[in-house]
C-alpha cells in the first residue's frame, strides 16, 4: 500500500501533541538524541561559532566559488548515481522477486547485495582501477576513467544498485497477483498494468529509495579519495582539505561549516521529496 496519511487513532479530541502516544517514541528519540543529534549539534555549533561565541564567519566558505562548484559536482554525481542506481536496482528487484523465494538465486543476490552495498572505499576504487584503469586495466583501458563524473559514477553505481535491491525488494514483493489479474480482467495489457497500477503503487517506495541512494552517495568519501585525490571534486573532498594537514593549516571550523552546508542541502532535497510524495499519493485518497 502506498504511504497514506490516515486519521490518527486514539482520542482525536485533544490536540495531537498532547496525546499519550508520544511515550512510545521516547526510547527512539532518546537514543537518536544522544548518538545523532548531539554530535550533529556539535558540528553545527562548530560551524557557526569560533570556540568562544556565535561567529558566522566560517560560513563564508560556502560562498567560495570552488566550494560552490564542489556542491554542484556533489549534486550532479549523487543525482546521476541515485537515478541510474534506482532504475537498475528496481529492474533487478523485479527479476529477483519473481523467482523462488527460498531459492539459491534469491539468497545469493540478497547476501551479495548486502556485502556489495557496503563495499566501498579504497578497495572498490582499486578494483575498478585494476579492471579498467587507463594504465593498468586488465579488461580494457578506459581513457575516460579519471574524468568527472564518468569513472567515479560507474564506481558509485556499483554499490548503489545492490543497496536499491535490498531496500526496494520488500515493496516489490508486496505486489499482489490479484492486482495483475484484476487488470487483466478489465482488459489491460502488461504495459497498462505497470503504467496505471503497479508503477503507481510502487512509486512512493521508489522515490524513498532514490532519496536514500542520493544521500548515500553524498557523504561517501573514501571511495572518491582513492579514485583520485588531487582535485577536490565533491564536498567531502573539500572537507578533507580543511581537516587534514601535515603543515598545521587545518581548520576544523571550516570543515564543520561545509558539513552544515551538506545538511542544508539534504534538507532541501528532502523537502522536494516530500512535496513530490504528496503529489503522487494524492490519487490514492
Amino acid at each position, binding site marked *: 500500500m502506498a504511504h497514506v496519511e490516515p486519521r490518527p487513532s486514539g482520542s482525536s479530541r485533544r490536540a495531537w501533541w498532547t496525546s499519550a502516544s508520544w511515550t512510545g517514541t521516547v526510547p527512539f528519540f532518546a537514543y537518536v538524541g544522544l548518538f545523532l543529534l548531539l554530535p550533529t549539534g556539535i558540528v553545527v555549533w562548530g560551524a557557526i561559532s569560533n570556540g568562544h561565541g556565535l561567529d558566522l564567519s566560517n560560513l563564508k566558505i560556502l560562498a567560495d566559488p570552488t566550494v560552490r562548484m564542489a556542491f554542484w559536482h556533489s549534486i550532479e554525481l549523487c543525482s546521476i548515481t541515485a537515478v541510474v542506481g534506482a532504475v537498475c536496482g528496481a529492474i533487478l528487484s523485479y527479476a529477483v522477486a519473481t523467482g523462488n523465494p527460498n531459492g539459491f538465486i534469491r539468497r545469493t543476490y540478497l547476501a551479495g547485495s548486502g556485502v556489495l552495498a557496503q563495499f566501498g572505499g579504497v578497495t572498490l576504487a582499486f578494483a575498478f582501477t585494476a579492471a579498467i584503469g587507463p*594504465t593498468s586495466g586488465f579488461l580494457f583501458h578506459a581513457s575516460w576513467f579519471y574524468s568527472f563524473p564518468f569513472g567515479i559514477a560507474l564506481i558509485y553505481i556499483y554499490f548503489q544498485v545492490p543497496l536499491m535491491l535490498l531496500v526496494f525488494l520488500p515493496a516489490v514483493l508486496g505486489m499482489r497477483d490479484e492486482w495483475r489479474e484484476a487488470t487483466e480482467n478489465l482488459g489491460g495489457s502488461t504495459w497498462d498494468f505497470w503504467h496505471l497500477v503497479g508503477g503507481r503503487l510502487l512509486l512512493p517506495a521508489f522515490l524513498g529509495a532514490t532519496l536514500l541512494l542520493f544521500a548515500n552517495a553524498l557523504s561517501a568519501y573514501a571511495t572518491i579519495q582513492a579514485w583520485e*585525490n588531487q582535485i577536490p571534486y565533491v564536498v567531502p573532498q573539500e572537507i578533507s582539505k580543511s581537516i587534514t594537514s*601535515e*603543515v598545521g593549516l587545518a581548520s576544523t571550523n571550516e570543515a564543520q561549516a561545509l558539513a552544515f552546508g551538506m545538511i542544508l542541502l539534504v534538507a532541501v532535497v528532502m523537502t522536494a521529496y516530500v512535496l513530490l510524495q504528496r503529489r503522487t499519493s494524492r490519487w490514492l485518497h
Partner: protein
Amino acid sequence: MRRTSPPAAVVLAAAFALLLAACSSKSSGSSSSSGSSTDWQTATSAAAGGGMSALIAAAKQEGELNVIALPPTWANYGTIIKDFSEKYGIKVNSANPNGSSQDEVDAVRQQSGTGAQPDVLDVGQSVALENTDLFSPYEVATWSDIPDSQKDPSGLWYEDYGGFMAIGYDSAKFGTITSSSQLLDPKFKNAVALDGNPTEANAALNGVMMVNLENGGSLANISKGVDFFHQLNQAGNFVPVQATSATVKAGTTPVVIDWDYLNATHGSDDPNWKVVVPSDATLGGYYTQAITKGAPHPAAARLWEEFLYSQDAQGGQNLWLAGGARPVEMDAMTANGSIDQSLAAKLPPVTGSPEFMSDTQSTDASTYLAANWTKAIS
C-alpha cells in the same frame, strides 16, 4: 495459536549479555604508577626518574603503550614496534595507521584524559611547532648526539628520522631517470604520481618543492613547481592518485615522487625498482617525536623514546636506518662507529647540498598551493 520465539529471545539475551560484559570490563590501559616513587609524568630524563632500570620496571608495570599513525612499512616501524614489544613485554596499541600528523594531534585533544590517548607522537615539523602545548619535555640518554638545530632546547620535541625527496621508478620500463625534467617525455603517459595531495600531505608538499627547486624555484617560492605539474598534467603524464605500494604493484602509478625511504618500500616487489635523489634538488625533511602531556602510560612512553634513540646495533636508530630512513643521530653514530655500515651503504647517494624547508617556508608554500594547486592540475 501461541507463538513463542525462542530464537529471538536467545539473540536478545546474548546481545544484552555482551553489553553488560563490555561495560563491566573497564579494561586495560588505566594510568597506574601508583606504587612507584617517581611520577614519570613529570620526569624529564631517565636519570632524573631514578635510572634506566627504574624506568624499565615502571614501564613494564604499565604494560601498554598507545601509538598512533605509524604504518608498519613506514621507516620500518613494523619491526620497531615488534622488537620493542618483545624486548620489554609491553603491548603496543597502534591506532589509526592511516592518519596524518594533524589527525595525531586531533586524537590527543579528542581523547585526552582517557586510556586511549596516544602516548607518543611522530609528526611533521610544522604540526609539532604548532602544538607544543600538548607535549611533555623529556631528554633521552643520547640527547647530546642530536644536533641542536633538530631539537627543542627545553626537550619538548626532537627530530627522529628523515630522508630526501626522490623519484622511484621501474628501470626496466623507463630506463634511467636522473631528474624530473625527463618526466615530461611522452613515454611517461599516465605514469607520474605524488604521495597524496600537496595541500594535505607533507610528502606531497615536499614533492612539489623538490620539482620546484629543480626548475629554478626557491624554498620561499613554490610557483615553478606548481607550473611544472601543470605542464605534466597537460602532457597527460600526471596520475591524480595517491601512490602507495599497492598502486605501484597494480601498475597505476609506475613513477612515484616520494621520500626516499618510502619509495624504497613502494618497489619492494619489483627487482628493477630504482630510487634516485636528483642532484639538482636535494630536499630533505625530518619528522619529529614528542611525548604527550598527561599520557596514560608515561613510563612506557619514555622507555619507547629511549628505545628509539638507542644507538645499539638493534636499537631504534639502526632500525630506522634499516627502513631506509636517515636517523637524526647518524653523524654522531658514524663518528663513534655504532652505525650499521652495510645499511648505511644502501641509502640512495646524495650528491647535491641538502636543503630543508623552514616552518615559515612550509606555511607559505601550503598557502600558495591551497590557492593554486587545484587550478594547475584541473
